[in-house]
């Protein structure tokens, strides 16, 4: 597999200039993600508007894959319902791990947006980099405003 399949231009772009890279002062939900293997740390902030994701952003440091994944995640999730977000995580997780499960066809556009990250499937040691932000997002939604920490190990 060519390295370029992993480090596509869009990944390098989002890795170097991540979108929605900011803290929120009063998020309704937030959580920290930590990958002890490489020391990557990320905080995901979510502001829910009833059942819909009004705002989602992140801050932290990490490799190009984890930063790009967080960046693309925030772009994809904004405006989605929690059910849609959950379906997207499921579909994304299946794509990068090669596992079962797919997002419904109504979310095809969103899944396509996440497609550049699926190159990590060929790099098992790096899958956790791509899923770190999503795990943090899930922990934020689950634990509300207490700021839980989720670890990839």
């Amino acid at each position, binding site marked *: 597999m060519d390295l370029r399949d*992993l480090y596509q231009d869009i990944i390098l*772009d989002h890795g170097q200039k991540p979108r929605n890279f900011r803290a929120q002062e009063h998020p309704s939900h937030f959580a920290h993600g930590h990958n002890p293997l*490489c*020391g990557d*740390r990320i905080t995901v902030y979510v502001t829910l508007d009833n059942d819909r994701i009004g705002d989602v952003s992140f801050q932290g440091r990490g*490799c*190009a894959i984890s930063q790009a994944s967080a960046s693309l995640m925030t772009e994809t999730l904004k405006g989605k319902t929690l059910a849609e977000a959950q379906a997207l995580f499921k579909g994304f997780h299946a794509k990068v791990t090669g596992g079962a499960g797919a997002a419904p066809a109504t979310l095809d556009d969103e899944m396509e947006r996440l497609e550049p990250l699926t190159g990590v499937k060929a790099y098992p*040691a790096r899958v956790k980099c791509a899923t770190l932000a999503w795990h943090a997002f899930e922990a934020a939604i689950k634990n509300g405003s207490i700021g839980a920490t989720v670890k990839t190990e």
Partner: protein
Amino acid sequence: MTVVTPLRAAAGDAFDPRRIRRDFPIFERNPGLVFLDSGASAQKPAAVIDGVAEFYRSDYANVHRGVYRLSARSTELYEEARDKVRRFLNAADRREIVFVRGATEAINLVAGSWGPAFVKPGDEILVTELEHHANIVPWQLLRDRIGCKLVVAPIDATGGLDLGKLAALIGPRTKLVAVTHLANATGALVPIESVVRLAHAKGAKVLVDGCQAAPRLPVDVQALGCDFYVFSGHKTYGPTGIGVLYGKKELLDAMPPWQGGGDMIVEVTFEKTTFQEPPHRFEAGTPDISGAVGLAIALDYIEGLGRQAILDHEVALTGYGVDRLSALPGVHLVGAGQQRLAILSVDVDGIHPHDLATILDRHGVAVRAGHHCAQPLLDKLGLGATTRASLGVYNDERDIDALAEAIQAAQAMFKRS
């Protein structure tokens, strides 16, 4: 009878890594492999791999138990391995050599046995900022168990151990200085003789973590004067699961057992047990017999290449690596003080170590990326992670060139419009 494969003089007159490489089957099975991660674990020469298999085929039985000849032979080989380790470290007495699982277990043994017996609440254990987690966490456990203090000696601006500050931190309550011989994350060499002089002047003992030093420096524990010295077999071209604790005889004699079981006893009743003398007092249960045999072969292999020759080779190659890597724009070598040996830890502008390591891997270059089990040191240096290349007897300038070229390829990939 003996299973130890006779040593070939791999290097002949001149030290030739390309010839040495032929002793290591991994390179034959993985053509093009540029292996620069011996600091994490070294590859194994065929002599070790075959020697361990041959031991199981010809001479294996449990040790220190059987009356039958096979067990006596196995015991003899196991105890011969102890003699080889004694010579390797130039320890005064074979009873000063305890076989353990690895350096981590050796340090835990000292912290678990010597610690509670000789360290009192309020006493101090001095470690340094250069330490691997294995030389930090066991002392924290001891601290939490008995209420002693953990004091940390800092590095200086160049990344070397600050001996002046270390001296100032050794006080009347300092019971032990636990220090690395060669820092695994940066390659900083520590002048152990000086540390020992400072510590002994105040009555403190010294434990040296020799994991990175044992495979590449001629180590003489009597000349160093340290009280404990530990190293792992797998970093010295031997098997995993075997390691060594050297302890001065009078210290081991005074230490209580740390694990109970078979082989470490003289007599057991339900009321009372009398314990063996060292080293057996500290080797409860069936030991890693084949590991000890394999380690002995690995030490023979190292001696066959010549320890001074290995050191000379790695000093020269480290120098080449420093020159080659520091000439690359955007590549920063992590400071290692006055003397760097065998480890080149780099930080590359704009590329996270894990991305770099993935790209290097695709160029056939195996390095370690991460915190190298030295998080406090990397925090101090203001780095979350680094990319670390570490040398072995099979590496040469071409490996360094491959590393440099792969770093440049990564930079080209990450430098976008």
